[in-house]
């Protein structure tokens, strides 16, 4: 009897989780956070090298008065990205007559280091995930969106957001997940693009060839956006 009870409630819990997962997956018809306040917290992942360069170029075009404070997530040890970011924020602040830029930098451990053996990857990935979870958990000021363009570690960030979506069913708004595929991807997705394709609410590509190919392969999911080159 007890056995049946445990089995029954496990099945029920599993069904509940599956239903919850289904209801939080990207849905173009879902209503979005509307213009009820004047500023919106945002999160931005800077993936190093060319990813960072492209992302900073994208971010610098946004309205900094509206989208603040900005939390930038950078992989541990990637000081170059932090430097480029500070330079970009300082430049924008200068253009806006020295208004104090409202941003913070969060360093997160890498999910997998270059040449790290696969056997230890689950541990480093978990550490990275927990770190992301801790720094994306906002009880009051929920971010309006989270912006990412790869590589690797941003998948952990996405997982952290999804874990919260899964559990925190009482929240009215969850951050819009925006993934922007690199200018370098003309006809095929990058690995992080492939991984995040089912989960991003807004998936942006920069080449018509790629947009057409994805359009043919879609099965629901978020909104695919193509507006030409963005960087």
């Amino acid at each position, binding site marked *: 009897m007890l056995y049946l009870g445990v089995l029954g409630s496990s099945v029920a819990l599993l069904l509940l989780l599956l239903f919850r997962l289904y209801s939080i997956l990207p849905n173009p018809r879902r209503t*979005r956070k509307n213009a009820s306040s004047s500023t919106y917290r945002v999160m931005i992942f800077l993936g190093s090298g060319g990813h960072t360069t*492209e992302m900073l170029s994208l971010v610098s075009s946004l309205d900094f008065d509206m989208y603040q404070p900005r939390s930038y997530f950078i992989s541990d040890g990637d000081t170059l990205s932090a430097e480029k970011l500070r330079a970009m924020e300082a430049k924008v602040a200068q253009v806006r007559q020295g208004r104090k830029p409202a941003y913070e930098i969060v360093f997160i451990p890498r999910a997998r280091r270059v040449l790290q053996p696969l056997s230890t990857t689950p541990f480093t990935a978990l550490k990275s995930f927990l770190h992301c979870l801790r720094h994306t958990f906002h009880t009051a000021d929920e971010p309006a969106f989270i912006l990412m363009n790869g590589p690797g570690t941003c998948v952990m960030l996405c997982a952290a957001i999804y874990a919260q979506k899964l559990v925190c069913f009482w929240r009215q708004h969850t951050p819009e997940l925006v993934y922007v595929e690199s200018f370098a991807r003309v006809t095929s997705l990058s690995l992080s693009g492939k991984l995040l394709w089912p989960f991003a609410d807004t998936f942006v590509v920069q080449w018509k060839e790629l947009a057409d190919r994805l359009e043919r392969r879609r099965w629901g999911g978020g909104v695919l956006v193509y507006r030409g080159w963005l960087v």
Partner: protein
Amino acid sequence: MRRVFVTVGSTQFDALVQAVLSPDVLHALSSKGFTRLVLQSGNSASMNSEQLALLEASYSNLAIDVWKFKASLEEEVKEADLVVSHAGSGTILEVLRMGKLLIVVPNPTLLDNHQQELADALVERGHLRAASVQSLASVIAGMDASSIVPFPEVNSSRFRGLIDERLGFTA
């Protein structure tokens, strides 16, 4: 003074470095009116200083400057009239954004074929030229600035509009 800047980024591309320092390419550069060659060789095998001095002596009107790495290549690109680069997407974007003439030489030993894809797509639109290690000299000789389609300025309202719209801030 006309400058050409050759860069391999952080990669190792021995064949490109060798080709650039070959008589064919140096001759093509010099007859195109280039007076200074700056070569960033990265991790590629290059010549030693004696060999370089000997080479430079045989081209009286072309100064040759070779080094491995610098913190930023931006200054070099800014001063160059022509850039010859491995097909790294970051370098391609940076050089085109600065409005410089660009010849890319994809590294055939790398299996990263999406870089080749990007180079092909941009060649097709006329924004740059591509060459192989073998054809570099003839591509330089045939390089005509007027046949290059200028790369469009970055349109920052596109991304801003896209985000505002997706969050429901625009009509």
